[in-house]
């Protein structure tokens, strides 16, 4: 079992939260009054794949950096992931601000994306301190 330092642990946590946010996109975010079923984060817009890809890439990079993949040494992964991760939070916030009849999925996604941003930023701060 490899021993992880503070940076790696925070990176893994941010990656897991980002991955869970990708899953939360497929939970019901808004009710439709029971008429046409519920709207998930993914079927709300045809372009939901865009934030999904961005957050998945950020999470994958953090995870690979935590388990020390050699090819990533030239890329400042914590900084780059801190740049990418808030796009998921922004996408969620757009719909939370605009929508009505919220279901649990919207709140789960909001919480997960906010936590993923906080932990990605923590990883960046730890990485900068060296």
């Amino acid at each position: 079992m490899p021993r992880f330092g503070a940076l790696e642990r925070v990176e893994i946590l941010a990656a897991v939260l980002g991955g869970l946010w990708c899953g939360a996109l497929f939970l019901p975010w808004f009710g439709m009054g029971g008429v046409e079923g519920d709207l998930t984060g993914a079927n709300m817009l045809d372009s939901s794949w865009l934030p999904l890809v961005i957050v998945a890439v950020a999470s994958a990079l953090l995870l690979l950096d935590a388990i020390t993949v050699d090819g990533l040494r030239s890329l400042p992964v914590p900084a780059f992931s801190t740049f990418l991760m808030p796009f998921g939070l922004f996408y969620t916030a757009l719909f939370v601000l605009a929508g009505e009849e919220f279901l649990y999925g919207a709140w789960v996604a909001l919480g997960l994306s906010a936590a993923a941003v906080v932990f990605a930023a923590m990883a960046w701060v730890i990485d900068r301190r060296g």
Partner: protein
Amino acid sequence: MDLQGISREQKEMGAAVCMLLFIISLFLKWQTFGPISGSGADLGSWPLVLIIALVAGGIVAADGLRMEIPLRRMNPTSVATYLMSLLVFYVIVFIFAIDGLSYGVWLALIFSVIGLVLTFSVYRQDTR
């Protein structure tokens, strides 16, 4: 296009003007569907985008006018660059999502991208 011939202040004021034009483009026609049309301001989340554009434009305008910005631990142009990248993301999300795109959405994309390029160029200058 060579951005090195443009002064830092000119880039910042250019980016601030782009943010103003982006805000105006929010109220132009983004979608046409037969006789029905909608603007960017018909999207429920437009106030958030308006605030982001105002803050980003305000930061670059204040920096360009050499005003004191109360951001002690952060580079103001990095904050503005980040906020403008969110605006580009917002427009691209809706370009892929809506049918019957109209001129307003393309103008919003152009102004947000030009604003981002100008601000990023200032940020690169700062960090070198």
